[in-house]
């Protein structure tokens, strides 16, 4: 795993993709700072970009990488290594390289604008950690989809649909349920639905941490009243970690049964 990880990371980090992705975050962050020198404003603006864009790029890139390296994966499968080591190693390589591009692209301007002497430092770290979790979760989901679909076009379609569903459609359904059933106590349902969507979870986690009541929304308030601010943050963070481990388990399981 460590060797596969090391080489796939090394391959990816020098690729055009990683470098463009890094530059993209670098430019976005610099542009945001040019509008406002207020670190906390920039943090809030980044929230929405990270929550929507990180999952999209991670799932699309994960899918493309998987299909593109099909033949090399086959060569690896012919070596005396356990199957799970190959896929876990590749998964870690992609997720880490994407995370690094994001961390550096966003981090460098913040360092320049004095994040280390700002009171916003802990919020900033939570945003970056959440973004990192999202990278890992969506690369893992991409691997599951790619392992399940030999057909590239199908796999790519499923991946983008899953993103669309979790990032956009889910909230619509959620809202509809709240409106339709507003006569009933919906706190538990809202809570459950949030735990089932890593994008919503990430949003809640960051908003609870930022503690901006204007952004809190219904589920944020539910989390707050059920678990308190700190408890809510811990629960959301723990759920995100579960969201990484369960798909990883699926990757190992599916890859053990698959033909290459």
């Amino acid at each position: 795993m460590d060797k596969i990880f090391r080489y796939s990371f090394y391959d990816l980090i020098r690729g055009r993709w990683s470098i463009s992705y890094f530059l993209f975050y670098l430019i976005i962050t610099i542009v945001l700072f040019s509008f406002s020198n207020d670190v906390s404003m920039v943090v809030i603006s980044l929230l929405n970009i990270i929550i929507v864009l990180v999952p999209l790029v991670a799932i699309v890139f994960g899918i493309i990488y998987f299909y593109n390296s099909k033949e090399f994966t086959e060569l690896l499968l012919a070596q005396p290594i356990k199957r799970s080591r190959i896929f876990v190693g590749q998964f870690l390589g992609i997720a880490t390289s994407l995370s690094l591009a994001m961390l550096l692209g966003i981090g460098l301007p913040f360092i320049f604008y004095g994040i280390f002497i700002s009171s916003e430092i802990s919020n900033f770290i939570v945003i970056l950690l959440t973004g990192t979790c999202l990278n890992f979760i969506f690369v893992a989901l991409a691997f599951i989809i790619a392992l399940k679909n030999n057909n590239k076009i199908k796999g790519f379609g499923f991946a983008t649909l899953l993103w669309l569903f979790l990032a956009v459609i889910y909230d619509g359904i959620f809202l509809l349920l709240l409106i339709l059933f507003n006569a009933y106590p919906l706190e538990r349902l809202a809570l459950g639905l949030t735990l089932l969507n890593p994008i919503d979870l990430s949003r809640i986690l960051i908003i609870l941490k930022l503690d901006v009541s204007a952004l809190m929304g219904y589920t944020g308030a539910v989390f707050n009243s059920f678990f308190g601010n700190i408890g809510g943050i811990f629960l959301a963070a723990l759920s995100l970690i579960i969201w990484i481990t369960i798909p990883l388990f699926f990757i190992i399981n599916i890859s053990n049964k698959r033909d290459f």
Partner: protein
Amino acid sequence: MSKLVIRELHKAFSKNQVLKGIDLDFSSNGIWTILGPNASGKTTLIKAILGMVIPDSGNISINGETITNNWKYKDKISYLPQIAHFPDNLTVNELLKMIQELRNRTGSLESLIKEFDLKPFLNTKIDTLSGGTKQKLNLSIALMYKNPIYLLDEPTVGLDPIAVINLKKILRKLKREGKLIIITTHIIPLVEELTDKIIFLLEGKIKFCGLKAQLQQNYSSKSLEESIAALLQD
């Protein structure tokens, strides 16, 4: 000497029944060639030996040990995949180093690099290599170790004539050293020149397995090509 035995091997990809009960005893070392039309399951058979394709039923064993749920036996097998595609941003040297690290064994690359003229490309990124050079790299990865078993899937595809000559030299040497070498190819002259035994796959079954001369005798034909044509019409 390693004994590779395949028993009652069946494999379907959804509705596509590719292998329909394959029985093979690789009873002697030397060069065995798997022949068969496109999509007859040659690659699938080789991948099954490597545990990459999981059979629906049947068994494969090496020296009496089943390969099911095992991966350590792959240390004894060298494999040349049909299609060569490597990580774009690694250099040739880095890739060769990676394979050796994964196998925990140092390969003998010096003579291969010379024979396949790879020296000028050692520090080149793989995505800039030509198809032929990639195939030479593919071959170097497959041939850098002395192993009891070699599985080579269409080894000559994309090679220039000089590389083909060098490859034949290497294969003859491996044969003299008593290795079991299984290749697939469509190139009849290569078969005539090198092969000891022929396996002919057709519609998921073994249509012929035996000595080259035997095949020619069976159909009393002058050339191998004619015997194969006769076999196909049978």
